[in-house]
């Protein structure tokens, strides 16, 4: 494992896509607080550090989809995965080494945003307004979410021997997860009642409050909420706007995704006929 990690990190160090993502995130980490500060000066609306700190989590799925499918897919497109197997490395070790390096890359990409954001944001806005524990919990959730995304995309990139196919599947999955989560969010955000407008007997406009048939209740709400919590896209939205209903459950769901995706991926990769 150490040998493969050493080789993979050496490759990561020379990976242009990785450095491009790091530079882009670092630039965004500087740009967002500065722009927010300039807006504050113009609008005189008082902003705080919290607002926007986690917005980027909406994009981590897409970022990881592109990165994992390219970084791991190269092993297939260039055929270099064969070198590892011929060198006597176990398949499970190859799989885990790729997952670890992809996750580490993801965490570095996160840090590339967070550190400049804090360095620029704290002098401009002061420290967080929200409870420190909530911020810390959200950071942990986001990092685990990053690894969960990595495990899903590593699964696809390791099982699919075509780099371009893996690219497409991973990106579609990332957007699919986000869109599904947006639909679930819309379902959960539906108000319990809504106003109905009508003309009364005198011909005047009148309104009455009626129960919203789209409002989810009972077991249906539980199911949709659980799905929203489990889906990485749902977690990304909840982290981005820091409105998680069950904040403690999210890291546990991410852990479950990591274990299931990695376990399943290792078993399938073990049996896979490589070209």
């Amino acid at each position, binding site marked *: 494992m*150490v*040998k*493969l990690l*050493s*080789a993979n990190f*050496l*490759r990561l160090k*020379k990976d*242009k896509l990785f450095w491009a993502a790091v530079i882009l995130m670092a630039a965004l980490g500087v740009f967002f607080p500065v722009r927010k500060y300039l807006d504050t000066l113009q609008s005189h609306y008082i902003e705080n550090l919290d607002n926007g700190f986690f917005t980027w989590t909406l994009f981590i799925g897409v970022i990881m989809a592109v990165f994992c499918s390219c970084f791991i897919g*190269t092993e297939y497109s*260039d*055929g*270099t*995965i*064969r*070198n*590892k*197997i*011929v*060198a*006597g*490395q*176990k398949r499970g070790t190859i799989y885990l080494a790729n997952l670890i390096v992809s996750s580490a890359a993801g965490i570095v990409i996160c840090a590339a945003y967070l550190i400049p954001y804090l360095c620029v944001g704290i002098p401009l806005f002061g420290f967080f307004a929200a409870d420190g524990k909530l911020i810390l919990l959200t950071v942990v959730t986001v990092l685990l979410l990053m690894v969960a995304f990595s495990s899903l995309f590593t699964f696809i990139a390791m099982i699919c021997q075509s780099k371009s196919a893996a690219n497409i599947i991973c990106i579609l999955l990332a957007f699919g997860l986000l869109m599904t989560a947006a639909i679930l969010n819309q379902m959960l955000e539906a108000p319990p009642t809504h106003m109905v407008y009508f003309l009364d007997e005198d011909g005047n406009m009148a309104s009455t409050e009626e129960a919203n048939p789209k409002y989810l209740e009972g077991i249906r709400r539980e199911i949709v909420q659980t799905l929203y919590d489990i889906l990485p896209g749902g977690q990304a939205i909840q982290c981005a706007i820091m409105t998680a209903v069950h904040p403690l459950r999210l890291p546990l769901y991410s852990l479950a995704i990591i274990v299931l995706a990695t376990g399943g991926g290792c078993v399938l990769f073990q*049996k896979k*006929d*490589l*070209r």
Partner: protein
Amino acid sequence: MDYVLKANALTKNYKHYKALDGLSMNVPRGAIYGFVGKNGAGKTTLIRLICGLQEPTSGDYTLYGRKNTEREIMNSRRRMGAVVETPSIYLNMTAEDNLRQQYRILGLPSYDGLGEILKLVGLEDAGKKKARNFSLGMRQRLGIAIALVGSPDFLVLDEPVNGLDPQGIIEIRELILKLNREEQITVLISSHILDELSRLATHYGFIDKGHIVREISAGDLEAACRKCVRLEVTNVQALSRVLDGMGVEYNILSDRAADVYAKVHVSRLTLALAEESCEVLSMQERNESLESYYISLVGGNENG
């Protein structure tokens, strides 16, 4: 005899297609084993199996005395290097960086010998050029260089001269011979370019429809191949009459050419032909080629 690789009744099925059908073969230590067969005969499938890229459906193989079902087969694999189909190289890296990767994969403590490997394969001047910009021959040599990291004593090369220009073919041939003679590396080399293989191989394994049709040493093959003289004449009927008169075995190839399977006395033959008003246009001494031996083994018509 000491064998590096022994395959026993190996079978590999892909759904309903049988790529290997009870293949058995033996690669002696120190040999350059030419693995001969047409496209789709099962050469690459066998190489994928012994490299651990795929598992056999049935049968087994032994690599340095360890069966493929044993956990220690991984240790045996560390003694081999392979280039399967296309060279396995990172295209966005230089030759040196590609070798550094392999050094790390093998867990070698330092990059000692990296320069020597590059020199051995003639890539010492590749510098900062990315493998993406290499010629096919350079990529092939880099693939072999990667396979040589860790000083393997068994090298598996799948179609190493495919698509190379004549200069590239010569370079790869000389490299393989050098590795075998100077480094005592056993080489399993698959190819369907028979003429090229005949310049390298010390042993042959002929594969057809997923099984070995014959294994033979280069010496035995040479003895089995018949020498002949190819004659081009103005009148092949006259030639036929003269050769019948001499009691010599021959084979008519066309209305102007024939192969004569005997050491002919040239003056006597040309005089005899002159008496029949037949002129000799050309005369070439030929060995029955590896190609014709292969065709005779696997069936000429089928292999066109």
